[in-house]
C-alpha cells in the first residue's frame, strides 16, 4: 500500500519539481499571496497528497500545475518543471492547451457537476478528442470504455448516458476517465471524494490507487481530509496559509507529525477507537487571503509553541531525512542536546508533551480566539 512506491511499468511517469512557486491575487487591498514560495517535488510514479483547509492555497497550487490560475490571480514567481514538458509557467497559448489533457489530466473539484448536462458522456468524449486533434476517435472511445470498465462501470452504457442519469460516484469515475483518456501520465485530483458517501469514497480511493499503479502515473491528490491522503498517498504535504509547512512520507508524517499544525490537525479529527477525550479542537481559525501574516510564521496565531522568532522570521524548511518541516520550534528542538538525529524521537517527544500541556490550556480560549 502507500509505503512502497509502485513500479512504473514503462517509466513514463513524469517527475514534477515545483520550486519557489508564488501565486498572488489582485484585490482592492493590493496583491495578496495565495501561495507563497512553495517547494514541492512529486517523484515519478508516486501519489502525493496535499492537505489543507480552506484558504490554504491547495487548489491554487493544483491549478498552477496546469498554469491555469485565473485572473485576478497570477503566478508571480517560481517554476513548475514537468519531465517531458519543461517549465509549465513559461508555456503559453496553444502549447499550454495541448499540454493540458495530453500530459496533465485534471479531475476538477466537484467533478460530479462538471459534465455538460445536455450532452451524453460519449459526445463530450468526442469533443475532447477533436479539440486535441485525435485522429483515431474509435480508438479513443475504445480506450474510454476500457477505462470505465476497469473502474467497475458498464462503459458502453455510461458513454450513452447524460449527467443526470449517473450517480455521484459514477460521475467521479467519469471525471477520472476524462483525465486519463488522452494518456496523460500526470494526474491531478482536486477533492476527489468531497460530497461522496463513505462507501463510495472508499471505492473511488481504491480505484485511484489501482489505476495509478496499472497505468504508471504520477498523481497529485488535493484534499482537506487527512483520511483520504492516508488511504492513497505515498507522500504527504501539509499546506497552511499558502505555504507547505510539513512534507514527507505519509506514514512517517502521520506517525510522528513535527509541525504543530499537523499535530493539531491530527488531534482535531475524532477517531473511531481510543480515548475520544484526546481529540482537541485547534484554537483560532484558518487565515483568509487578507489575513495571512506577511512576515514570520503563518501559523503562529494558533500555535502552542509560539516564540519570538515566529513573529519576524519566516521558518525555513529544515530537512529530516526524507521529510522537511518549516517550524522554528521544531528546528530548535532538533538542535537540542539530547537529540541524536531525525531518527530518534527523544527530543521530539519532549516537544510533543509540551505542546499537549499547553494545548490543553488553549482549548478553553479556542472558540473565543477564533474571532480575533
Amino acid at each position: 500500500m502507500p509505503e512502497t512506491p509502485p513500479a512504473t511499468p514503462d517509466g513514463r511517469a513524469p517527475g514534477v519539481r515545483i520550486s519557489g512557486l508564488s501565486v498572488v491575487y489582485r484585490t482592492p487591498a493590493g496583491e495578496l499571496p495565495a501561495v507563497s514560495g512553495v517547494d514541492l517535488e512529486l517523484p515519478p510514479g508516486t501519489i502525493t497528497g496535499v492537505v489543507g483547509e480552506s484558504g490554504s492555497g491547495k487548489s491554487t497550487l493544483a491549478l498552477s500545475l496546469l498554469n491555469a490560475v485565473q485572473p485576478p490571480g497570477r503566478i508571480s514567481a517560481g517554476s513548475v518543471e514537468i519531465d517531458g514538458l519543461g517549465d509549465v509557467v513559461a508555456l503559453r497559448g496553444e502549447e499550454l492547451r495541448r499540454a493540458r489533457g495530453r500530459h496533465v489530466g485534471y479531475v476538477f473539484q466537484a467533478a460530479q457537476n462538471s459534465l455538460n448536462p445536455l450532452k451524453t458522456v460519449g459526445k463530450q468524449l468526442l469533443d475532447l478528442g477533436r479539440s486535441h486533434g485525435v485522429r483515431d476517435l474509435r480508438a479513443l472511445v475504445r480506450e474510454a470504455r476500457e477505462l470505465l470498465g476497469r473502474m467497475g462501470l458498464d462503459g458502453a452504457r455510461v458513454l450513452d448516458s447524460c449527467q443526470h442519469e449517473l450517480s455521484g460516484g459514477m460521475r467521479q469515475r467519469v471525471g477520472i476517465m476524462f483525465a486519463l483518456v488522452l494518456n496523460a501520465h500526470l494526474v491531478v485530483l482536486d477533492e476527489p471524494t468531497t460530497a461522496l458517501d463513505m462507501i463510495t469514497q472508499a471505492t473511488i480511493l481504491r480505484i485511484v490507487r489501482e489505476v495509478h499503479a496499472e497505468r504508471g502515473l504520477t498523481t497529485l491528490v488535493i484534499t482537506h481530509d487527512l483520511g483520504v491522503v492516508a488511504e492513497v498517498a505515498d507522500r504527504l504535504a501539509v499546506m497552511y496559509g499558502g505555504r507547505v509547512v510539513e512534507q514527507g512520507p505519509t506514514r512517517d508524517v502521520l506517525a510522528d507529525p513535527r509541525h504543530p499544525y499537523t499535530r493539531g490537525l491530527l488531534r482535531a479529527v475524532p477517531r473511531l477507537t481510543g480515548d475520544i477525550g484526546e481529540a482537541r479542537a485547534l484554537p483560532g481559525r484558518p487565515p483568509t487571503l487578507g489575513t495571512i501574516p506577511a512576515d514570520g510564521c503563518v501559523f503562529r496565531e494558533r500555535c502552542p509553541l509560539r516564540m519570538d522568532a515566529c513573529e519576524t522570521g519566516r521558518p525555513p524548511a529544515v530537512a529530516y531525512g526524507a521529510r522537511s518541516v518549516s517550524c522554528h520550534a521544531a528546528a530548535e528542538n532538533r538542535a537540542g542536546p539530547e537529540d541524536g538525529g531525525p531518527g530518534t524521537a527523544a527530543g521530539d517527544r519532549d516537544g510533543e508533551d509540551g505542546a499537549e500541556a499547553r494545548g490543553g490550556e488553549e482549548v478553553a480560549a479556542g472558540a473565543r480566539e477564533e474571532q480575533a
Partner: protein
Amino acid sequence: MITGQGITKTFRQRGAVLGGREVRALRGVDFAVGKGGAVSFIGESGCGKTTLGRIVAGLESHDSGEIAIDGVPMSSLRPRARRPYFRRIQLIHQDPYSALNPTRTIHQALAAPLALRARQTGRPGSWIDERAGELLGLVGLDPGYVLPRYPHQLSGGMRQRVVIARALTVDPEMLVADEAVSMIDVSLRLGILALLRDLRERLGVSVLFITHDVATARYLGDDGELYVIYRGRVVERGPVEAVVSGPVHPYTQSLLSAIPVLHGLEEPGAQRVVPTEPLDEGGPDAGCLFARRCPFATGRCTAEVPVLGAAGGFPQEHACFHPERRSVVAAPAGRA
C-alpha cells in the same frame, strides 16, 4: 422526551411523464430521544436520515406513524396547536452560509426571535440585548465583536455558532444537527461538536445528530445512541461504543470498513466488509433490503424481513438473520 413510532414517508416525483416514480424514504422508523440525550443517525446519503430529521423538527410531514413530544401525540393536535411543540425542536442546518440572512446583522438575527420570546413571557425589551449577549457567550463568541457584524464577515465556524445561538433563543429541548460540521473547516469542526456536547451538559438540551461520519457521533458523549439507517429502515441500534467496537450488521460493518485508516497512527481492522454491489435505491423491496449487496446473504435474507431486535445476546439491537461481530475498525497503532 421525543419519540417516534413507525414513521414512514414516501416521496412521489410529480410531473414525470410515465407515471410518478416513488422513493420510499422511511419505512417505519421507531426512535426515542430522552432529555439531554444524544442520538445519532448514520447512513449513506439517500438513506432517509435527513428526511427523518426534518420530520422530527416539524419541517416535513410524514405519511404514517406517530411523533410524540413529552407524551403528547402530535396527530391529536391541530396544525396550529402543534407549532409550540415543534418550536422546542430546532434544526441546525448543514450549511451555515445559507442559514443566516445575508442582509441582516447577527444582532437582528438574534433579536427577532428574542423579541417574540420577550413578548410571550412578559419580559422587558432590555432583556433582548442582554440575552443575545448571554447566548453568544454561551456558544463561545464575543458579543461585542459579533453582534454588529453581517454573516459574510464571520468564518464558517463562527456562523455555525451563531446558528446554534439563534436556535437557543427559544429555549429548545432538542437540537437536530444535520451534518452540522461537514461544511466547516477541519480544524474548527471539533469546536462545534464540543459545543454541542457542552450544551447537553450545561442546558440539558438533547441532540439528534445526523451524519455519515461515525467518528464525530462518538464525540457527542459516551452515553450516546447510534441508529444505523439503510434505505429507510433502522438496521442496527445501540450505545455508540457498543456499535462502533462490535458492529454486527454487515451494513454497519461496511460503513465502518470504509472509513479511511490513518496509516502510521492506526492499524486497519482485521476484517473488512465491502458491499458486493453499489447502492441502488430502486432495488427490490422483499426481505432484507441490504441482502442484494451483502457478502453474507443467504436465501432467507431475500425471502423474509428481519426485524430489529436483541437476538444473539449482543449489547445492541440489530435487524440481521446472521449477526456476527467483526473487527472492521482501525485500532491505534502501538507507538514504538
